[in-house]
């Protein structure tokens, strides 16, 4: 019995110092990923520089699972631009197009949005009583587009077990690989 276990156990024939090194390597990969994400945040000026489209309200421009690159440059907002905004009390940000803008003398904006695939504008989606979005609601302006790549995160979100399974397999894989 012990024999079988020692044969199956991928860590069996690896010296201890090498296991330690693999753990460090694993940490390095995680840290690098985090660095890239945080670096992108600084570069783009947006709190979430990459978002996955979750709804079909912008079809045929964006489908579920498409990936958007956002930035938050200082230039003025104009109609036709696709922005990502967050409504107070709602967790999921919305990707829609600006339909109306009223720019005030003090540089503030009243913004009305609409999804390309929706028949009416977004007043019904805003907080009760809220008529307009302001700059504070907007977390990013869509600048780049990649189709379908974000489907991975949607599948993982829909089946959380898959996420843990994948992380587990990956961890075993990384730790047990010999140089």
């Amino acid at each position: 019995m012990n024999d079988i276990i020692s044969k199956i156990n991928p860590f069996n024939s690896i010296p201890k110092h090498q296991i330690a090194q693999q753990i460090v390597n694993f940490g390095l990969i995680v840290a690098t990923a985090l660095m890239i994400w945080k670096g992108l945040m600084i570069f783009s000026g947006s709190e979430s520089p990459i978002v996955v489209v979750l709804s079909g309200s912008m079809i045929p421009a964006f489908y579920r699972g498409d990936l958007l690159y956002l930035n938050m440059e200082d230039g003025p907002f104009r109609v036709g631009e696709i922005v990502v905004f967050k409504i107070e009390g709602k967790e999921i940000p919305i990707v829609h197009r600006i339909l109306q803008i009223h720019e005030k003398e003090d540089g503030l904006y009243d913004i009305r949005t609409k999804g390309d695939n929706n028949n009416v504008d977004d007043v019904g989606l805003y907080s009760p009583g809220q008529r307009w979005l302001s700059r504070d609601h907007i977390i990013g302006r869509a600048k780049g587009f990649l189709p379908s790549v974000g489907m991975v995160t949607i599948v993982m979100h829909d089946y959380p077990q898959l996420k843990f399974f994948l992380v587990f397999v990956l961890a075993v894989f990384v730790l047990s690989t010999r140089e």
Partner: protein
Amino acid sequence: MHSLSQRANTIVCFGGIVLVGVLLLNVLSRAFFSDHVDVDIKLNEIHRFNTQRNFEYSFISIDLDANLEPLFNWNTKMLFLYVTAEYRTKQNVLSQVVIWDHILTEKSKANIHEKRLSKYPLIDQGLGLKNNTIKLTFNYNVVPISGLLTRHQVGSSEFKFPTTYIKEVY
């Protein structure tokens, strides 16, 4: 010497790098396609111009001539066309309202000669439309198959709202 996992890793890595490279070339290739289009836009008619509570609103229609065929290349998924009314009032330094928009996905329909287009009402936040000059502009937004999202403005014309309200003509 080379295990299956190492081979798989190399293939996936190399595949990824090639895909990113092709994507980059694809994005850069847009510079070689002409994006010059001629657009003619003008007001057809002010159908209604009235006030309600404390704001003014209007239904207007426009005539549009545009040939957008040159904008369709291998990296064009769709064009989002929209016409904006731009004006300034005492209340706002700039107001932009979309009065018509259209999703264009086929090159064969990109040659547009339309009269009396209208979709959304022009609603001001206050009483700023009367006797005000409105600038109509034609804009398009290129949605690529992959790459950068860009906005462009071509063609504009101006008109002035009358000093009296216009009820709908039957």
